């Protein structure tokens, strides 16, 4: 974070989410500033996705508060989240395969004409416009998205966020299903969006993705935040230590470190 505003774009305070008796997210606080990428890492079941689902409205938290622009927000479903400018890009589940790119881009927020019927041509031209910016090679506007490649599908999902002027973007494993070239394109896109002042939560298993893109890294372990570090202050090994051992680098003993490398 260099010269960002003093008020965080997002501030999540004391968030708890429980499934039955299991505490998936336990008293987590996290913030995000405009133009910043915060990487959220941790092992399977650490609670990363559950925490992000609370922000995207997919699963309301059991307790805790979320501020957007310093004001208490009420997010209980995906529509609420979108109203706050929060858009989510999922690894899967994001697109309805049987409809085309424009229909997916506007899903839930369709454009209609004066009589109230769908304005498909307006939706298609808006889709073409945003695609020209994101992915000039994209031409498959008329086909159901099931016939698209993983990268093309991901660009439709990102286009949706961009078109609706997302200010807060949640990317849950955005490159997990992509090949190397497509991954690089998504990374370029993330840098571009960051430049435009969008705040991005990047959930990823790929530590290199995170180190390449994030300004700060928050590590989760068993539903709690182990620590949030500036990327420039840590090494990949230190972050891996946090992910695996579940404690900040300062608390890791020499013995544990040796075992980790053993």
């Amino acid at each position: 974070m260099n010269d960002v505003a003093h008020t965080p774009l997002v501030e999540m305070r004391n968030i708890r989410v429980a499934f039955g008796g299991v505490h998936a997210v336990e008293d987590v606080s996290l913030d995000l500033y405009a133009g910043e990428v915060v990487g959220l890492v941790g092992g399977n079941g650490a609670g990363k996705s559950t925490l992000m689902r609370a922000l995207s409205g997919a699963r309301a938290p059991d307790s805790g508060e979320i501020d957007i622009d310093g004001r208490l927000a009420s997010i209980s479903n995906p529509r609420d989240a979108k109203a706050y400018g929060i858009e989510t890009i999922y690894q899967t589940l994001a697109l309805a395969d049987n409809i085309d790119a424009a229909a997916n881009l506007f899903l839930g927020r369709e454009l209609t004409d004066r009589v109230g019927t769908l304005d498909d041509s307006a939706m298609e031209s808006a889709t073409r416009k945003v695609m020209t910016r994101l992915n000039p090679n994209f031409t498959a506007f008329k086909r159901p998205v099931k016939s698209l490649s993983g990268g093309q599908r991901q660009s439709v999902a990102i286009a949706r966020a961009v078109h609706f002027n997302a200010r807060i973007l949640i990317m849950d494993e955005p490159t997990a299903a992509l090949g190397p070239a497509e991954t690089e394109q998504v990374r370029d896109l993330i840098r571009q969006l960051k430049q435009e002042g969008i705040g991005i939560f990047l959930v990823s298993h790929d530590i290199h993705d995170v180190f390449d893109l994030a300004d700060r890294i928050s590590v989760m372990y068993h539903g709690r935040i182990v620590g949030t570090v500036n990327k420039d202050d840590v090494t990949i090994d230190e972050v891996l230590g946090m992910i695996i051992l579940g404690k900040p680098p300062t608390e890791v003993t020499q013995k544990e470190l040796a075992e980790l490398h053993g």
Partner: protein
Amino acid sequence: MSAQTVGTGSTGVPLAQRIGRVIGRAGILIPFLIAFVVLSLISPPFLRFGNLTNILAQQAGIIIVACAGTFVLIAGGIDLSIGAIYGLAGAVALTTASSVSSPAGILAGLSVGLAVGIVNGLIVTRFRINPLIGTLAMSFVVSGIAVIVTKGNLVVALDHPDFQSFAATKILGLTSAAWMMIATAIVALILLSRTTFGRYVYATGGNIQAARLGGVRVNAIRVATFALSGLAAGLAGTIDASRVLSAQATGGQFLTFTVLTGIIVGGTSIMGGEGSIQRTVLGCLFVALIANGFNLLGLDPFYQQVTLGVILLLAVGVDAWSRRFES
């Protein structure tokens, strides 16, 4: 996202694949036209205005229910209770018409259908019961109620000819039943292809999770499709009760399967997410043409059932085959 070429043009695409795509796109239109032309050639009475309008009048109820059923199937559900609703609605409409008044009878028939449809929707969404099982169970419940209401008798109201005018009034050569069918098909066509509701029906059937995350109230959409289906079955039961001034609890015994055959032969996917009103109407008319052809040619009705069964299998097989060429 990448510069890789995707098979957009048809250049270099194998012939079988191109044929597959064309057949997939044209769908039921081709067999429908073939059946129409063949019947016109081998049976001169087929093309008579009287025969064609008769087909339309007989199909009115089936096509009305099938149009609504198309919404249910595209949204990923199925409604096996339409025949039972049809029977109950017809009996209730006729009883009410003869004891109160014709408008009250019509209203009662439609209300019964809508009410059962909403219950179906709630069973599937609120109680998370598989639609196949939920509506099958409801079909027993509703049929049972219909038998109780009619005491198992045929309900007749031959002394109420005014109720008959609901379905049997001739307007421009067609009966009001046929006009209601045409109106239903047009409304359903616009609703499904031109409105946000229709878009949500497709999205719900295509990927319910994505639709929900997109902000679509998927459960409300699913309830609405079952409500439409129930309402349509209620309308169809009322129309046919009005047409012949009699109704029976078991009157819709075969309707469910006739309707599903029409929808699926038309090319709407049983897996959800795909289909259209045009295809459903053509599918139902195609099935009707086959039946009409058997009658005109004086063939054994037994073979008619065998033929329909084979056609249904073929339709599903061709659908699966042409689907392979889509991507």
